[in-house]
């Protein structure tokens, strides 16, 4: 081989290397698995399900439960990237739901005050979770597992105390719309938004409407808007801000992060607080939506949230993951949960799907991660 040929070969190799980064950059996105999953599930339902599922009203139908789970999953994904778990988010939904309903109905506080109190309370619980994990050095898995039971039990006890023996607390909607101020806040946390726009669109025959002129979809359920806002905010914080870099660092290697001047304890504690506040927000949204709260609210949601986060590309070991991925994971959930009702398939296959999806996601994520990071 002459030198010229060798040089040509070398440059040819370089040409190939220059192509690789584009594919690699795609592969490096943690949410790749979730996007592919979403496409597979969408194609599946387009083929199998009744066509009404992908009409605007159908999409709203499956996005609403996806939004509730998604808000939890985004919180869980941030915490998982930060290297910790929170198994208590489901119980946190029940407990903060109780706090919120008790504030509004039993104590009769104005709605904004009740919302603030509920969020502050959740933040305090998150702070406690975080402090216990950090100061005892116990795995967050165990500490929050304990709180899974503690909070669920407290919800039952508290509900009986607040209602005088029942495990359901009603009348939230009536109590929350008594003054104009209350009604203003009620609109932010319950019902639909963009109603004016939708009736305008219906009046101009731009969207489907009933014979009486009412649009079939009166607006976008407010939880979907919250979900979208939180997803964008979390993704931006995680990938673009200093705090986001600290989350990756704290989860990737807490010691290395600390040695580089990252305040790992503060980062982790704040993540527990954020996760708890996400649970409280879901509690507020669902309690206002249904007008009541009960002790089974948020049951097993902690697992679904973690599964959605894992589908979204979060590693169980921390330091890697995506908030957008978790949001997509939650959408996949909603799509399957509601989508099955548009098919002739038995609803209970949902649980089978849940497990299978988790297994596939973890398997897929491990392969991708090894490729990207050059681990052997």
């Amino acid at each position: 081989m002459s030198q010229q040929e060798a040089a040509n070969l070398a440059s040819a190799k370089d040409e190939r290397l220059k192509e690789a980064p584009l594919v690699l950059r795609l592969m490096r996105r943690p949410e790749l698995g979730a996007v592919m999953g979403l496409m597979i599930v969408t194609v599946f339902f387009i083929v199998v399900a009744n066509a009404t599922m992908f009409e605007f009203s159908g999409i709203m139908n499956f996005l609403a439960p996806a939004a509730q789970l998604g808000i939890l999953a985004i919180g869980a994904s941030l915490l998982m990237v930060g290297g910790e778990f929170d198994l208590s988010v489901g119980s946190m939904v029940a407990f903060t739901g109780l706090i919120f309903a008790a504030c509004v109905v039993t104590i009769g506080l104005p709605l904004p005050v009740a919302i603030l109190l509920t969020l502050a309370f959740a933040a305090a619980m998150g702070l406690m979770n975080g402090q216990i994990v950090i100061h005892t050095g116990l795995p967050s898995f165990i500490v929050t597992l304990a709180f899974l039971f503690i909070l669920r039990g407290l919800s039952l006890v508290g509900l009986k105390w607040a209602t005088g023996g029942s495990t359901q607390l009603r009348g939230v909607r009536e109590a929350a719309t008594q003054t104009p101020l209350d009604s203003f806040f009620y609109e932010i946390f319950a019902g639909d938004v963009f109603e004016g726009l939708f009736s305008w669109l219906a009046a101009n025959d731009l969207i489907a409407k009933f014979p009486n002129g009412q649009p079939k979809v009166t607006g976008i359920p407010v939880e979907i808007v919250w979900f979208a806002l939180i997803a964008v905010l979390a993704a931006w914080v995680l990938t673009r801000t200093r705090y986001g870099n600290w989350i990756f660092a704290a989860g990737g290697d807490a010691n290395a992060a600390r040695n580089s001047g990252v305040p790992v304890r503060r980062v982790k504690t704040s993540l527990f607080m954020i996760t708890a506040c996400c649970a409280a927000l879901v509690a507020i949204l669902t309690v206002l939506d249904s007008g009541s709260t009960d002790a089974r609210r948020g049951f097993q949601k902690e697992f679904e949230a973690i599964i959605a986060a894992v589908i979204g590309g979060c590693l169980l070991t921390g330091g890697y993951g995506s908030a957008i991925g978790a949001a997509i994971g939650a959408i996949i959930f909603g799509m399957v949960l509601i989508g099955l009702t548009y098919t002739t398939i038995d609803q209970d296959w949902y649980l089978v799907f849940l497990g299978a999806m988790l297994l596939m996601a973890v398997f897929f994520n491990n392969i991708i991660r090894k490729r990207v990071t050059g681990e052997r």
Partner: protein
Amino acid sequence: MAASSHIPLVEMRDIEKHFGSVIALSGVSVTVNAGEVHCLLGDNGAGKSTFIKTMAGVFRPTSGQMLIDGKPVTFSGPRDALDAGIATVYQDLAMIPLMSVTRNFFMGREPVKGIWPFRHVDFDFCDRVTREEMKRIGIDVRDPGQAVGTLSGGERQCVAISRAVYFGAKVLILDEPTSALGVRQTSMVLKYIDMVRKRGLGVVFITHNVRHAMAVGNRFTVLNRGKTLGTARRGEITAEELQNLMAGGRELAELSDELGGTV
């Protein structure tokens, strides 16, 4: 050396550190001057790690004094030490394999732009700086977004050092930077240490390899069982003497005889 006539960058006086009943350091004094590589030698368990962690603000000394530019200081955390210009490159490098070179390079010191709440990390700037700094030390990083896990050991070491230098370290503590490297990668790191010294930084080079120490060191301090066995200048001591000091002398000489002088 001209630098020795000035006030040392860092002076550690009679540093003691106890962990419960364990005395890890019992009176260690070391000075670091600008433009000088100060080698800290010692066998495993001699207290090298504890000492540099004290210097880096990770541990608070039980007693003793620490002076920076002649002024006494107390650090309440690694951040204080960093702010004072003391940067440490640990054995495990404080690098996170899953994160990109850029994110690692700027970890804990991310430059931000914009006003709150829109304040965010200036990643364009970060990528540019990372690529430039890598080029300067001769590492070809195709894409600063690639994960640190894909770099070789020597490359990671150099990235870690250049990170510390970039962030304006005046004193650089290198914790066994060559211990896990092959010959070529070692010479790459030693060459870079020499470069850093010529830029006027003070370097504390921890090693238990006398040859690596002799290659770049200006002064040598040997630690043994938490004590300083003395500091020698370059030319005042031979590699053999250093080696003997490190291992407590006689035992090693005997072993060396048994093995035919190879230790």
